């Protein structure tokens, strides 16, 4: 252990005394600092915009003076996807998933207005977020720091001297790995510290746990990168070959494989096209009750049933407004159609995600990306959860309006009947409840385990490399 500490200390002495390294490090720290500041600024701006839009729409709703409840259901409202504090570290899929959804009767609208769709072309390649640097650039920097760490010692003959002084090759290789890894961990810690300081008053236990897992995932990934680079450095006599090998690994892991694996997952578990999906929904919906057509067969059947229940002969004798009831029946049927089709889609998305997660077995970068955006609450899981909560809210919202139409005191066919402002004020606003961290942990445990397994594999490679290392 003493030897490992000494070697790590010596490696760091080299780094600190290297003007080039210091220059690069200062530049890097500044870029990271800038990325955290920008990320925070963008998140705060989004939050402000979100709050303004939310307040504006709510104000519109509560300002409705008098209106027929079902007309109000058609009038509808808008729900805005809230940004979260952790977006400033990794915004994941949030910039492409849209953030506004119109909530109204009879129809489940799609979420629209993604941030990316409104950006300039160049900006669509991704914003300068810490995750961009931590996932792509920091690993490259670690490769450049580690690629000649063992081969240099071999070529200079110092490896012999180190072993003669009592260091075991495994200690040397692990120390070389750790010293570069610690640099990566330092950059990561710096990012999280700045983030923590900037958001000190808003940090919750949930955010801290999520950030802890975020930190763990990156630490494991950096260890994999450093260990693999040191392994190549010990295997190849030529440092350039070690560098080329690792750059190849980096390109395959970060550029090609994520796309290939995602395309494969999409092919294995394919979603219907938008056109197919809408046609299928329309067809199923047409088999149901049409809330606006009193001559519809199912409407007539419902009418007969209700008349029987109330023991009356005609709609005019009903103490309730049958129009509202018919509208709600239409809504209920539409909901079951939506549940069927969207439920299938959610299952397919879940399978796609699971297949993609398994891709981590061949590419730990995938596991890192998954955990990074997952723990930062900006993955598809959180997005789907948001959509589900919006749909549940929509159902409650429309039901409340239809029930008011039905039981609020109006008679069937009385479309001119209106309710006052107090009712609209009493309709609750949408309140998004973020997915609990423990659910996220269970969902991403596979990725964390894969990263751990990769780390063990890298240690095994280092041990194997130690046995094959040629000291003379």
């Amino acid at each position, binding site marked *: 252990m*003493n*030897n490992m500490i*000494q*070697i790590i200390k*010596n490696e760091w*002495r*080299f780094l600190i*005394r*290297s003007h080039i390294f210091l220059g690069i490090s200062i530049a890097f720290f500044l870029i990271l600092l800038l990325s955290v500041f920008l990320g925070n600024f963008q998140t705060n701006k989004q939050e402000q915009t979100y709050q303004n839009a939310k307040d504006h729409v709510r104000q519109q709703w509560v300002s409705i003076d008098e209106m027929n409840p079902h007309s109000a259901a058609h009038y509808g409202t808008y729900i805005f996807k809230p940004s979260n504090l952790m977006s400033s570290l990794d915004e994941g899929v949030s910039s492409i998933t849209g953030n506004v959804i119109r909530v109204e009767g009879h129809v489940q609208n799609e979420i629209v207005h993604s941030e990316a769709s409104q950006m300039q072309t160049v900006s669509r390649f991704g914003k300068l977020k810490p995750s961009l640097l931590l996932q792509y650039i920091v690993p490259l920097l670690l490769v450049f720091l580690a690629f000649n760490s063992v081969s240099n010692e071999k070529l*200079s*003959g*110092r490896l*012999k*001297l*180190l*072993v*003669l*002084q*009592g*260091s075991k090759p495994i200690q040397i290789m692990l120390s070389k790995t750790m010293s570069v890894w610690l640099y990566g961990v330092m950059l990561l810690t710096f990012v999280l510290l700045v983030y923590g300081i900037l958001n000190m008053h808003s940090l919750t236990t949930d955010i801290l746990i999520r950030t802890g897992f975020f930190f763990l995932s990156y630490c494991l990934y950096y260890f994999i990168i450093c260990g693999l680079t040191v392994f190549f450095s010990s295997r190849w006599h030529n440092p350039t070959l070690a560098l080329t090998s690792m750059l190849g690994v980096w390109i395959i892991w970060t550029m090609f494989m994520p796309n290939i694996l995602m395309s494969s997952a999409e092919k294995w578990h394919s979603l219907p096209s938008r056109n197919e999906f809408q046609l299928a929904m329309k067809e199923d919906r047409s088999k149901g009750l049409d809330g606006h057509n009193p001559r519809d067969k199912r409407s007539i059947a419902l009418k007969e049933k209700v008349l029987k229940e109330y023991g009356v002969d005609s709609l005019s004798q009903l103490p309730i407004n049958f129009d509202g009831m018919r509208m709600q029946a239409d809504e209920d049927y539409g909901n079951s159609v939506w549940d069927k089709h969207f439920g299938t889609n959610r299952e397919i998305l879940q399978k796609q995600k699971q297949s993609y997660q398994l891709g981590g077995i061949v590419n730990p970068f995938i596991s890192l990306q998954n955990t990074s955006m997952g723990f930062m609450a900006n993955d598809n899981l959180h997005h789907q959860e948001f959509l589900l909560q919006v749909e549940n809210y929509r159902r409650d919202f429309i039901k409340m309006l239809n029930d008011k139409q039905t039981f609020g005191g109006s008679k069937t066919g009385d479309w001119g009947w209106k309710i006052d402002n107090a009712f609209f004020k009493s309709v609750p606003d949408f309140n998004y409840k973020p997915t609990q961290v423990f659910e996220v942990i269970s969902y991403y445990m596979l990725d964390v385990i894969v990263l751990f397994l990769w780390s063990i594999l890298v240690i095994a490679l280092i041990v194997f490399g130690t046995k094959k290392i040629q*000291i*003379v």
Partner: protein
Amino acid sequence: MIQIQNVSKSFKGNVAIHNLNLAVHKGEILGLLGANGAGKSTTINMLLGFLDPDSGTVSINDIDTINNSADVRKLIGYIPENVNLYPYLSGLENLDYFCKLAGLKYSKSELENYLITCGLEVKSHSKKVNGYSKGMRQKVGIAIAYAKKAMVYLLDEPASGLDPLASNELSILLKKLASEGATILMASHDIFRVREVCDRIGILKNGILVKELNTKDVSANELEILYLKFMQN
């Protein structure tokens, strides 16, 4: 003491050492002369425990280097032709680092004393090694072995590329170490330096020890004639 008995070593069918028998006693300096590829470095690497002989035994102070390489290495100081230290550290820091790796903690003054003993001027102690001459680096290399309290010194072409003054300083230092009880094996091309420093000389040719003699029994000129004769035959 160094003991090599009936040792042979081949690399992919090419004989590097053939039935080598050699002994170097405490306080003795043995010079191994030979051309490139004669087997000098292979012999040293077997003594260091980095290469296993195909047959025979290699031991240092009666410890087998094959099965107890870690124990043997504690006794050895090794000075290669080019002592490549860490260029961003000073001579003093290099010595301190290598001592710490060996589990030895010395004060600054103790480290300085080791460097002074090995002939490195005080003004150079704190200078970065990237400004050192080959001779200066070699002195630090010997200081590392000396501070480690090595009982056996293995030197591979130590005088190669040294200026006459540095080479002479090295000779004096090696004699001093031997007088303190160190066992020294020095592989070299330099007939005159070997003749001057060593007590005994072995001539290696194609992995075979073709001649072993006492330095006292031969003059420098005679040694040169003898060496050339063996090399030409």
